[in-house]
């Protein structure tokens, strides 16, 4: 079962995503901020990360760069209440950017796409 790690400081969001994705037969783990996040990714081995941007003590876009540099192929989907952050070049390190909505269909579609994304291993 694919595993999603939801990184968001709002408990209500984490709960909503857990319920919705578990209904779709995903395994869900939660992180409420960036504290020890890279280590948790290492131990939990999620297949995709759904990452908030504005968290109280952490900037999700900075976390994104750290995740991307350490886990180059791990899909990361930004899920933010603010579409304005699309203007930040740091978002280019994410696989997709989804503006938060009560309708999760776009987020689910992007998660599915991220899991389908196949780049053949490099030869040599």
């Amino acid at each position, binding site marked *: 079962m694919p595993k999603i790690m939801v990184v968001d400081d709002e408990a209500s969001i984490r709960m909503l995503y857990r319920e919705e994705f578990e209904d779709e037969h995903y395994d869900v783990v939660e992180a409420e901020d960036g504290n020890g996040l890279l280590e948790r990714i290492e131990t939990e081995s999620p297949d995709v990360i759904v990452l908030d941007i504005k968290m109280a003590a952490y900037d999700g876009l900075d976390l994104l*760069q750290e995740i*991307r*540099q350490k886990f*180059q*192929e791990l*899909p990361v989907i930004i899920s933010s209440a603010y579409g304005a952050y*699309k*203007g*930040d*070049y*740091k978002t*280019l*390190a*994410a*696989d997709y950017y989804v503006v938060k909505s009560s309708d999760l269909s776009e987020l689910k579609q992007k998660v599915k*796409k*991220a899991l*389908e*994304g*196949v*780049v*053949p291993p*490099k*030869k*040599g």
Partner: protein
Amino acid sequence: MIVNVSSEARSGEDRPVTPRDWIEKNPQRVEQADVVVGIPSFNEADCIPFVAEQAAIGLKTYFSDYRCVLINCDNASKDNTREAFLSVDAGVPKIYLSTPPGVRGKGNNFRNLFQKSVDLGARAIVVVDADLRSITPRWIKNLGEPLLQDYGYVAPIYIRHKYDGTITNHLAYPFSRALYGRRIRQPIGGDFGFSGKLAAVYLESDLWDEYVSLFGIDIWMTTLAINSPFPVAQAFLGGPKVHRTKDPAATLGPMFVHVISVMFRLMERFQDTWEKVQWSKPTPIFGFGLGDPDTPPPVQVNEERLHSEFVAGFRRNEALYRRVFPEDVFGKVQEIAGLSFDQFELPSNLWAKIVYDFALAFYRLEADRDALIESFVPLYFGRTGSYVRSTQGIQLRAVEDYIEEQCLVFEETKPYLVERWKEIQEG
């Protein structure tokens, strides 16, 4: 001072460059280096001193623990580019390399750079355009440091005016991203880095041809890098690229034919890879934290000319387009060519099919490929004109959304290409 001029170089004949067939001036007798900054040039005497100075400061500031050298790889410029470069008081050793007189081409300059870098044992090679006005020392850091962390290739991300880099925005970026599954935002940026190991791969490649030796070199390097064993990254350079920009409606020159021909030709070699790629993925990005970037200078566009070139080009090439496109695509292109300037629009979903149909036609044809790519130019003008119209009044970062949407269209349309490619092979 070492001056090496092979006997063949003195002849001035027009011929492809062969290994170490260069004119070299190496006043400090550099024989080994860890970090190289290469500056390819042809008649850049007025610009190259500034670029060399900034690159030298970058090397001294950020790579002071490494053996560094600046290398100007020139095409035997006649405007004193060599003297202008060598007279820069850089505080870093300099080497001047040139192709022999009569041997032109940016790609040939790069081939000399690959060879010299391998000869020096370089681990990291950063390349910057000789006509840059916006380069800062930090560019050298951001493009070079990842190479010392075992990345093989580092492409730039810089702020460009929404009408600068239209070949990149509408062809090189969406096409290479959809095919090879890696989002290199500026695949023909002109300022990038590669490792010594990748330089050796480039030297050993049997994919070199005339157009690679000319303006096709950038897309060739990026495509081979993506398909090499080495990881690729991007570096945010923090500011706008300020160089000699051109109205996209102006004459394209040979660059278009070289870039697109190389792009299409490489598909045959890497077919096993791109047929399997589903959706694209981002790369690590280095170099943030430079503060808010400046706004790039404006680029003027002659929209009416783009439209008129598209319409005239359609009429001129109609018979060829009927052979390139399936009926439905031809019909749509024909319809758009009949629209007035005020009404015309060439949307991205049609544009993706046009590009893929041209790639397929290129694959089918052994002869007349140049004529095929020349006939592509009016369609590119049409797409550019439509894009200019659609993005007027839109801020730069919102335009990135537009480009991103076009890339997603290319990815979603890719099965169209894969299916028809297989039909050609089986046919």
